[in-house]
């Protein structure tokens, strides 16, 4: 008696969202099965891997990153290198310098950086704000305007500023809207509901439902994503069928495992190796739980995660 294989077939589908233009444009989502469950049905658009760069440059990055970017001095030069990184599908430019509690760069200055980067590369672009909700409302709207025609994804519209970011990106300038919520299925859904009520098409929204580094409250991340994919596919919940993007690097390079110096923790060995492992393992877990795209920093992590995706899809 052979094994009675019972595929889980759903009549619902994750929305397909396209980012970028031309040959290198990418599609996120479009599947009717759980993450990597190709034995249940096809996954036409494999999950994608993005490379994070910042308007602030590299800061005190690990040697491998410094070596990779070499003499690239401006964000546009870095973007060119990032675009050529093995396994990279898109670039995520973070405009960290806009933070009023940090460098507080002006919106004009940052929009100019975004424009230079967009003009320097042909791969799809994601632009992330500085995380200050007021500043981002203004900044991301202006970036959306300046990059018209490039079909970029803007991160993020949040509960506090979705009106400004959503209206500019999703309605006025025809870009894609990233909807960011805090590790909770109800919050994710609520934000999608109000953003679509603004008039933004569901097919223009990508969700960032939050993440944590492995070991740091990560169980909530797993369960939030598991439940979102279940609701989207088995209950056909249209307000949770947006593909998921997860900025991984920002979480993983700031925890002790990746930050502690070798002098402080001699038995732990190479700091760079610790950081890479933390980035790879968190990204892999995010993809297993349901991310359709992950944003990473280190060339080794980008190559590895991209390889794993190719093996699985």
């Amino acid at each position, binding site marked *: *008696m052979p094994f009675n294989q019972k595929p889980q077939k759903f009549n619902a589908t994750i929305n397909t969202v396209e980012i970028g233009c031309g040959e290198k444009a990418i599609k996120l989502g479009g599947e009717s099965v759980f993450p990597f469950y190709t034995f249940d049905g096809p996954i036409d658009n494999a999950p994608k891997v993005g490379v994070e760069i910042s308007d602030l440059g590299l800061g005190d990055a690990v040697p491998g990153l410094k070596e990779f970017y070499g003499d690239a001095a401006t964000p546009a030069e870095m973007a060119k290198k990032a675009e050529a990184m093995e396994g990279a599908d898109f670039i995520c430019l973070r405009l960290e310098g806009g933070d009023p509690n940090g460098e507080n760069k002006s919106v004009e200055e940052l929009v100019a950086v975004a424009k230079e980067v967009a003009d320097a590369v042909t791969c799809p672009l994601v632009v992330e704000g500085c995380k200050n909700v007021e500043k981002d409302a203004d900044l991301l709207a202006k970036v959306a305007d300046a990059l018209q025609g490039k079909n970029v994804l803007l991160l993020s519209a949040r509960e506090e500023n979705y009106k400004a970011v959503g209206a500019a990106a999703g309605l006025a300038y025809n870009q894609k809207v990233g909807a960011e919520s805090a590790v909770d299925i109800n919050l994710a859904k609520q934000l999608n509901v109000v953003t679509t009520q603004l008039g933004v098409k569901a097919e223009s929204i990508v969700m960032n439902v939050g993440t944590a580094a492995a070991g*740091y*409250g990560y169980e909530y991340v797993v*369960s939030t994503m598991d439940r979102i994919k*279940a609701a989207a596919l088995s209950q056909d919940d249209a307000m949770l069928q947006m593909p998921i993007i997860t900025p991984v690097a920002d979480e993983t390079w*700031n925890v002790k*495992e990746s*930050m502690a110096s070798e002098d402080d923790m001699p038995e732990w060995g190479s700091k760079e190796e610790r950081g890479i492992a933390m980035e790879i393992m968190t990204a892999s877990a995010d993809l297993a739980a349901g991310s359709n795209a992950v944003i990473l920093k280190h060339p080794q992590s980008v190559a590895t995660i991209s390889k794993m995706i190719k093996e699985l899809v």
Partner: protein
Amino acid sequence: MALSGIQIFKMTPKTNCKDCGSPTCMAFSMKVAQGAVDISACPHMSEEALASLSEATAPPMKTIKVGTGDGEYTLGGETVLYRHEKTYVSKTRYAVSLCSGMDDAAIEAKLAEIPAVDYERIGERMYVEMLYVNYAEEAGQDKYVALVEKANAAGRTLVLGCKDPEVAKAALAVCKDGKPVLNGADASNYEAMNAVAAEAGVVLGVTGADLNELYDTVAALEKLGNKNLILDVGCASVKDAFAAAVQIRRAAVKDQDRTFGYPSLVNVAKLAQGDKYLQQALVSLFTMKYGSIVVMEELGYAEALPLFGLRQNVFTDPQKPMKVEPGIYPINGADENSVCLTTVDFALTYFIVSGELERSGVPCNLLISDAGGLSVLTAWAAGKLSSTSVAKFITEQVEDKIKCRKLVIPGKVAVLKGDIEAKLPGWEVIVGPLEAVQLVKFLKDMQG
């Protein structure tokens, strides 16, 4: 198939004697059907009723034990596919692979690294739990048995990867007391392997060219009376291994197909041989999706730190909040004049912060207020960590016990500084760093 309360009731003596603790046989039957009590609580069930009931009410996935003493691990026994439905019960266990085809120096080096990883994280000891000892035919039986003996001396629970019944028998002779797993049965050799495993009293690992072959082999082994099995998902490709791991678990738990109701073993050391980074990605994938034992080539600190953290998270009980008691925690021999730092009562935060404070060697008092067991930012966003909550805790529980009036607050809630100072006259509020790991330098600089 799950039975209804009525079906179970029909098999009880229907005397309502109350010996089971339930008022009636019917009430008892309903509880059994819900899984709230075990059928054995009624002392008056007939043998045949018990036999048919225990088969029908048996859990979908068997619980298999391997190893002995401190190295005894429980595998399987899961009842759900997702952790939000119910807590996963048996953690993924990790094995480092050795092979008799490796040269002696490489083997020695690998064995020497095993004890290096050994630390505690939130009350749990983290270390390499198992060794996978692979048989390389060309190296011969003697070398293999010698390697098994050496690996056994390392004090970790063994998995023998060996498809040759004769060699397996010789290897088990030197290690069977440690209750290793013998992984090597397949469609071609299962009868002989079954005899070897049964004689040594160890768990048998089974594999197949595909899921159908595996299924048939398991069924054949069950027919021979062996239900002490682990299913090896195979090494043909990453894609096939993942498909097998998911479908085996899903068939058992969701579709109640008991032939696949066993724990699984995933050998990422073979799936991604020589590529330690891909192995890192895969060990995380198979921790999320249904690997009971995952074998890797390397498990040093770089791998262990994120991996054991991930496992600890994934296998926590969502019902049980991980909290510590609010109060004053003196560290490094602190007294009433030592500097104060404040944080929340979330266990993870407490363990991370107190660990760093200990590492600094600076005497200090860690003040933990009731924040509903949430992390710093979560508590702040939820209104459970505020200038009012901190000020109230300090006036009511700290001021009469501590003389020092310096308070360091977490960098992530720097915004609270002004309000806390306004509410706590006489106190100097200092904004600490964002991450606990930076506390060591911060405190030393503050002292100096």
